């Protein structure tokens, strides 16, 4: 497992325009990261972000629309994943981001990190999430009462 920190980290970045099941993607990702059970990483951190049921102003949300800059969004997610993985010396990173019309309760973002220690795994998840929220070209529009409003900024930590 020391190989995870010395060899090149495995990075997987996906932008999906349809609903996804985070645990199903995690299962596929885990099975790729370990040829045998004994190869499994000692530490794994995950984050799942889902659409809230109400808008920033408290009205019931019909849907969230997520626009990206195709081409750049993949490139940026990949660059962010590579930089975070390198800084924390982790073995593998998975980043999944939804685009298009997303309903309340559906997953928008999934981040997973495998590492040899709990500290790097959890810190890398948190940092990756902040980075992608501020430096990957995605924009949210809240739809409520048939009216769409572009979200002005990210939700606070």
């Amino acid at each position, binding site marked *: 497992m020391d190989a995870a920190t010395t060899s090149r980290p495995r990075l997987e970045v996906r932008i999906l325009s349809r609903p996804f099941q985070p645990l199903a993607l995690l299962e596929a990702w885990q099975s790729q990261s370990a040829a045998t059970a004994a190869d499994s990483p000692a530490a794994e951190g995950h984050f799942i*972000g889902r659409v809230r049921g109400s808008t920033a102003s408290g009205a019931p949300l019909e849907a969230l629309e*997520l*626009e*990206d*800059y195709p*081409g*750049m969004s993949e*490139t*940026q997610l990949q660059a962010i994943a590579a930089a975070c993985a390198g800084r924390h010396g982790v073995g593998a990173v998975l980043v999944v*981001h939804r685009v298009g019309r997303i309903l309340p309760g559906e997953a*928008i*973002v999934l981040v997973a990190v495998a590492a040899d220690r709990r500290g790097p795994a959890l810190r890398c998840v948190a940092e990756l*999430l902040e980075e*992608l*929220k*501020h*430096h*990957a*070209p*995605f*924009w*949210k*529009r809240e739809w409520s009462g048939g009216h769409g409003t*572009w*979200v*002005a*900024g*990210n939700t606070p930590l």
Partner: protein
Amino acid sequence: MASQQSAVAAMVRVRLFAALRERAGWSERSLPLAADGCPLTPADLWRQLALGEAPPGQAAEFPATIRVAINHAFAPADTPLNPGDEVAFLPPITGG
């Protein structure tokens, strides 16, 4: 052939996203790179295309809240553009 190629290459593509796109009413345009021989920058394009909220006649500073990408990579707004570049103006990012 050579002159046709250079004419094609001397264009830049401009792209707008989200609220910026809706305010301007368009998402993508091709523009000649350098009409007057000076190297064109994204900030120049911003003024030429009157993308700011200031009335078109008034010269507005390039806003600090807007980020520029050239060929899918973030770049300063005063970067000289090259033929064939794709310039994008990005309103504040709200992903994740």
